[in-house]
């Protein structure tokens, strides 16, 4: 994929994440911060389908943005064919692992497996 397209994805994921993370934080501030983190309250969040879907979208946007940012930093430090390939595939793998791990929490908590 061309770097110009990757950077457009980078900026798009950033703007999307800013909007959705703002909603996520406002949900915490809609009541007393400590109360919003109580076990019962957090489970209620996961059981609410639109909110769980929003968490999933935030997870994907931030993972893509975060690991692409790390990839850019690492490629700025050093160049070379095998190094660049390792960084590119390593970033995609790390991104996939984080999304899978986070999705597991959202899915299982949403289905009541806890």
């Amino acid at each position, binding site marked *: 994929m061309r770097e110009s397209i990757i950077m457009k994805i980078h900026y798009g994921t950033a703007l999307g994440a800013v909007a959705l993370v703002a909603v996520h934080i406002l949900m915490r501030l809609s009541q007393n911060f400590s109360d919003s983190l109580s076990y019962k309250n957090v489970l209620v969040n996961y059981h609410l389908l639109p909110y769980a879907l929003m968490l999933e979208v935030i997870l994907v946007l931030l993972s893509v943005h975060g690991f692409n940012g*790390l990839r850019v930093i690492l490629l700025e430090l050093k160049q070379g064919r095998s190094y660049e390939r390792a960084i590119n595939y390593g970033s995609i793998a790390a991104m996939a692992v984080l999304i899978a791990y986070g999705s597991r929490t959202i899915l299982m908590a949403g289905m009541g497996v806890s």
Partner: protein
Amino acid sequence: MAERLSNREGIKGMANPTRYGMLRVAYWLQRLSGLGLLAYLIGHIYETSTILNGKAAWDNMLSLTETPGGHIVLVIVIGMCVFHTGNGIRVMISEGGKGIGRPGQPEYPYKAVSLSSKQRLCIWVSIALAALAMMYGAGVLFGN
């Protein structure tokens, strides 16, 4: 040849925050805050996964994070998040060619038009917004 080699500073030359003024400082802050936020994201995803192990595990995790130390980390995360967002929007707009001036003849003292007061102002506004958000966050977290 010797002179050419002496000018090759590599990463140190690129990374030197005392060169190129405020924009290089913003470049560093953007990268450091990005790395910090990625570390927080990974930690946050791990932290929230403990809810699958039941109420005791969740409360145990909260007893680690809902402490003055945990709140200080959160306040720093809020600051990094707001600066990264503000400065990131500046970078996006600049990359679109806005606010970086028009290229002209290089004339002494070779002042780059891209290092304009608008760019500097945007960086300072990002820092100020981050400071305000940190103060508000500290009020919410420590006010409980």
